């Protein structure tokens, strides 16, 4: 199977409250870092993933704007919107673009950005629900943490873990975020601290949900055959797959199944010609702990209802069987919606280049990233590998 693209440069901002930076400032910072990392090659196309800048920041048409500010006049500029899967979907589109053109025509830049602190928390919560099916969720008044609360209760009842067992997923995120210079919460957290934080939607506690943060991440892509000329440590995109799923999890045959992830992961593994056992580490989309656990099960790392045991036995820690969210995941690194998918790509690139510092997964050859919108309406799965 032909590899669609290679990564020759990555860059990102720290995730956090960037009071002094606009959505554009953040995107520019991430893009300039990625371009510098790639040795400033000529760029012919720009893809920007963003969930809600029109509402959050009163700024639309980000791709053309960013191209203009980056002095890339004349390039193809495409904005990609798919809720909090926008980042990985923009990266996917960039991969397709590279694959369609082949070598020698210039690099493609993919950027994910979200500036969330321009509005208050209740507005962030409201906008987050706009990516769901308005008919049965948004208009009912339920929120993403509310949906996660239902899933968590169902999971606890069906499979027996306590909520304290489940939040260990967030504990793993925080442990890994400690060594990520761009993480929003680079400190460890104890399960009892999570359990002592305010209830958001019973049983979900505040510290089991991603914080509100701003950030941007970017990657520079080129054709795999020219990557060794442009980079000493190229990372190859072995597969880039996208699948949609039932928006409303109550309508899913199996409420614990994230069908979009299952479909995208299956296609991606097949396209990459690897089995799940070949994957050295995973970056998954953990909206709250229970969603991260369901993702582990959907990827086949554990049987249905057993994912929480994998977490409790610390088998997802770095150095254990299946290193998960090695740079902090949504909880530790942060979850600036449209940027999250590209943060995963940036972090997986660090791992595959051997640049992950104290969090380096020894001998990392293949990494899998999973970014989705809402609770699984759309999943993007990427399989990246160390370049040859």
């Amino acid at each position, binding site marked *: 199977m032909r590899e669609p693209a290679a990564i020759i440069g990555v860059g990102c901002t720290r995730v956090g*409250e960037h*009071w002094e930076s606009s959505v554009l400032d953040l995107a520019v910072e991430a893009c300039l870092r990625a371009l510098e990392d790639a040795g400033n090659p000529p760029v012919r196309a720009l893809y920007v993933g963003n969930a809600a800048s029109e509402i959050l920041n009163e700024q639309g048409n980000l791709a053309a704007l960013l191209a203009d500010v980056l002095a890339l006049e004349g390039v193809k500029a495409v904005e990609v919107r798919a809720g909090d899967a926008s980042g990985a979907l923009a990266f996917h589109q960039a991969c397709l673009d590279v694959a369609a053109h082949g070598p020698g025509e210039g690099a493609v830049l993919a950027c994910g950005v979200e500036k969330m602190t321009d509005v208050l928390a209740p507005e962030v919560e409201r906008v987050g629900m706009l990516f769901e099916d308005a008919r049965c969720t948004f208009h009912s008044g339920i929120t993403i943490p509310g949906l996660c609360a239902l899933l968590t209760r169902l999971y606890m009842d069906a499979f027996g873990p306590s909520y304290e067992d489940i939040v260990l997923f967030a504990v793993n995120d925080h442990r890994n975020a400690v060594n990520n210079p761009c993480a929003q919460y680079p400190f460890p957290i104890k399960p009892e601290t999570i359990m002592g934080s305010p*209830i958001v939607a019973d049983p979900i506690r505040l510290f089991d949900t991603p914080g509100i943060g701003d950030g941007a991440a970017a990657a520079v892509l080129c054709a795999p055959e020219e990557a060794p000329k442009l980079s000493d440590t190229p990372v190859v995109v072995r597969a880039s797959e996208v699948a949609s799923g039932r928006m409303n999890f109550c309508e899913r045959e199996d409420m614990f199944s994230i069908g979009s992830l299952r479909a995208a992961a299956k296609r991606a593994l097949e396209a990459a010609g690897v089995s799940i056992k070949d994957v050295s580490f995973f970056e998954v989309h953990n909206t709250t702990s229970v969603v991260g656990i369901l993702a582990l099960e959907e990827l086949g790392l554990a049987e249905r209802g057993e994912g929480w045991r994998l977490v409790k036995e610390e088998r997802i820690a770095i150095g254990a069987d299946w290193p998960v969210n090695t740079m902090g995941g949504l909880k530790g690194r942060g979850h600036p919606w449209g940027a999250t998918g590209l943060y995963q790509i940036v972090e997986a690139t660090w791992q595959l280049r051997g640049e992950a510092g104290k969090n380096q997964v020894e001998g990392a050859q293949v990494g899998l990233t999973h970014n989705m919108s809402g609770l699984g309406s759309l999943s993007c799965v990427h399989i990246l590998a160390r370049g040859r």
Partner: protein
Amino acid sequence: MKPLRPVGIVGYGAYIPVYRIKASEIGRMWGNEGCGLPIVEKAVAGPDEDMTTIAYEAARYALARAGVSPREIGAVYIGSESKPYAVKPSGTIVAEALGAGSHLLAADYEFACKAGTEAFQTCIGLVGSGMVRYAMAIGADTAQGRPADDLEYTAASGGAAFVFGLKSKDTVAYVEGSCSYTTDTADFWRRAGQPYPRHFGRFTGEPAYFRHVITAAKMLMEELGLGPEDFDWVVFHQPNAKFPVKAAKKLGIPKEKLEPGLLVPIIGNTYSASSPLGLAATLDVAKPGDRILMVSYGSGAGSDAFSFIVQDAIEEKRPLAPPVRAFVQRKKYIDYATYVRFRGKLLR
């Protein structure tokens, strides 16, 4: 900034209403059972109290310590964001009640929580220039917090008054210097006609409170050639129990220097009275020769920083009025329903 002629505090007074409501009682009302309450309890004005009666009580005690006839007061400035009248000065009500006579300057200041220290600077300027002999600055509030809003836990009532005169053996502390740091920062506001203020969430922290308080403190230290270690006591504006402690830490000031004036955990955020009450509580314990740093913060936004040097007269004047601690310890607990009645919340 320094006045042309040295100016000091001739007398100071405080007042805190007797009623208290526990933060946990407010939390009980809104389903917040003890997770991250910002303070322990707050002072609540009674049904017969408003900002002017609180200001009057504090002013009376300030005059008692000053040993000055009300007639000698040439200016009364009140800083507050809970003025009983949108149009009609509160300074006139207090001045008339004190018997300050009519040969008088009086006005109200508004600058969110630093309106009280704005009045300090005006009084220091008027006295230092020789335009008036004595001037009184008051910070007083019956602060408003919308039911269920984060601010409801902390928005409290209280007041502190200071009489300024030329530095002499009668001044309890003199002004070594002052400066202000002001920007247009919309972190907290209340539009005309609205009963409750609004705030911009976590924006009120780093880019608002900390930026202004820390910058003003550093500016003052630079102007005076002083470092954090040169101050014996420190008073910062106190919107909650965390912020002033964190600001001190960022400036490298040990928490012990903050403690005498750190009243917010047990009386709440008294807004314009917050840092002035902290200063009064610090004067209650300071010794002659001690240097006090006070930095207020007002949303909108700005900070006023002051350095005061305590003088010998503090020892003889201190007993002439009740210490802040007496008001802190004198308390009656009320439940949420009584709080709603006292603060007229059903009428809003």
